[in-house]
């Protein structure tokens, strides 16, 4: 009786009408720009925008041999790994701690989730104000501790600052998932391990951490995507990609080349590469994460 579960619309055009708004949004804001980017990536424009010329994969060849692009790729990899590791490490630590709290569990959890509600640009400004060498409160404290703090000149410090700001914002999200993951581990498993003579640390590494693996893997993908694409606002606000090009990630370079330097062909080619990366990450996620892991 497969037909009985099948809803049929009496009107042939109604379903398309109902889908139309969503389709329109997807087409206008996704497919159209994406196709424009692909088209743009194989064209070259003269500096005044008067003539365009088809160059095939020329733009790709050029950016892939451009040391600036390779630098940006390296920056992105360092930035993403650092952000993901820090954000997930702290989130896991906090989740384990919050799980142990008996009184006021809800308060801790609520407070932990707040940073997630802060917009990236505002989070960036917040960190900028706190650590700005000329007026930042923390910058003042660090300097009075005898450390030469100047993220406007020191590229490592600039990287540290954007990683901290980006990770700080993402901790909340990771925390939520880790808390849920911890809650889904039956308490009796921990008790059984305690009876089996495993101390707290051993229990964590041999029982809890392996059981959190699906959550951790999911978050790894999500955090990578976040660090790649969603941190534009933070970088833009905190360092603007500088000093030099020390914090210029791939996404930031797309913006810089396309909208600041107006090299549309290069910028488009870069965004096509980014598109391929997203598709790859999404495929990994669907392939491994969406596959439900059954325990029991």
């Amino acid at each position: 009786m497969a037909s009985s579960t099948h809803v049929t619309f009496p009107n042939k055009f109604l379903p398309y009408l109902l889908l139309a708004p969503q389709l329109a949004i997807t087409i206008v804001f996704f497919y159209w720009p994406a196709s424009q980017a692909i088209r743009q990536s194989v064209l070259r424009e003269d500096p005044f925008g008067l003539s365009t010329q088809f160059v095939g994969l020329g733009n790709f060849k050029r950016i892939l041999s451009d040391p600036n692009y390779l630098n940006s790729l390296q920056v992105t990899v360092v930035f993403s790994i650092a952000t993901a590791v820090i954000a997930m490490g702290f989130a896991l630590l906090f989740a384990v701690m919050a799980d142990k709290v008996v009184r006021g569990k809800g308060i801790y959890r609520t407070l932990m989730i707040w940073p997630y509600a802060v917009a990236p640009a505002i989070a960036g400004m917040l960190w900028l104000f706190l650590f700005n060498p000329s007026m930042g409160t923390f910058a003042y404290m660090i300097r009075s501790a005898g450390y030469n703090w100047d993220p406007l000149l020191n590229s490592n410090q600039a990287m540290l600052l954007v990683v901290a700001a980006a990770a700080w914002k993402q901790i909340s999200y990771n925390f939520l998932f880790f808390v849920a993951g911890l809650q889904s581990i039956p308490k009796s498993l921990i008790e059984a391990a305690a009876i089996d003579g495993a101390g707290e640390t051993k229990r964590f590494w041999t029982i809890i951490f392996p059981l959190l693996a699906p959550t951790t893997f999911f978050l790894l993908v999500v955090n990578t995507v976040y660090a790649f694409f969603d941190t534009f606002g933070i970088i833009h606000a905190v360092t603007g990609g500088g000093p030099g090009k020390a914090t210029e990630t791939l996404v930031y370079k797309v913006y810089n080349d396309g909208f600041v330097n107006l090299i549309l062909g290069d910028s488009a080619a870069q965004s096509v590469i980014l598109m391929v990366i997203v598709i790859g990450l999404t495929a990994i996620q669907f392939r491994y994460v969406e596959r439900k892991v059954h325990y029991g």
Partner: protein
Amino acid sequence: MASVELTNVRKVYAGAVEAVKGVDIAIKDGALCVLVGPSGCGKSTLLRMIAGLESITDGTVKIDNKVVNDLGPAERDIAMVFQNYALYPHMKVYDNMAYGLRNRGMPKDQIDKRVREAAATLELTHLLERRPRELSGGQRQRVAMGRAIVRNPKVFLFDEPLSNLDAKLRGQMRVEIKNLQRQLGVTSVYVTHDQLEAMTLADILVVMNAGAVEQIGAPLDIYEKPASTFVASFIGAPPMNLIPITADESGLILKDGTRIGAQGITVSDKDAIIGFRPEDLEVATGTESHIGGLLLDLKVLGVEPVGAESYVYGIIGGERVVVRVAGRSVSQPDDHLRVIIPKEKLHLFGGNGKRI
């Protein structure tokens, strides 16, 4: 192997909820003690206190004549089988069983020997390389047992280990657990809400109600001489029939005002409860010579034939009762039967529910 002794053990939760109220139980070395009672009676809490998973508010728990109140679960040398088995889902059966031994730093070859021995005892050898999710409910149950016996602990603790199995498997595993426990001779504490499981497994049965012990004894002693109406109605299926009565100088009166023909039975309390097992009722033929007993009128409500026996449901003095009859009953609804409860089969309880 060890004795287990609980002395005035209490558990009070924050908010002054007294979950366990002064329990005393002494379990001899090698005995299987079953804690039985309705849900929320504190039996699981008590078990978890013995295990060290729950703190002890008051009183002492001794294992092998040593007070273990302040020892962690690992130091008490106990093994526990959980209701949901609590197998480590990411480990193979072998590793599940070896985990506790590894944590105790046992040499590898010895672990291997122990695990294989335990697996052979429980017929798990062919499953050692599987993961828990690839096993059936009964097999998981066995692995949980294996994880307990491989450690060779002083005490086994079972927390409703069979309640997730279907009825047939439950009966089978019950026998296996009993045999295994006999064979290994390890002192065990077993928690269940199933009175049949309790009756068949226990060397010593502890009936609990609302955080307190109602009665402790051998299962059949408890069946034959329940200490209270609670025990009487909890142990035995169908449960004991209980009928409240009042007594005056001239005899016994049912709640609906009917006088009972009583021979050789006197009740000193004004309010009392008479009890009888469903199988202990006899239909009066008018010819029997009375040695003593109660003569009652039973109105039949319905009959349930279940094969070897039939259950006759009826009303005596306004109270619903059930009677077990061998073979098939010829009674019809609305029949009135004259029934006798023989004196030696009659249980008498005072108004407070305690046995007189």
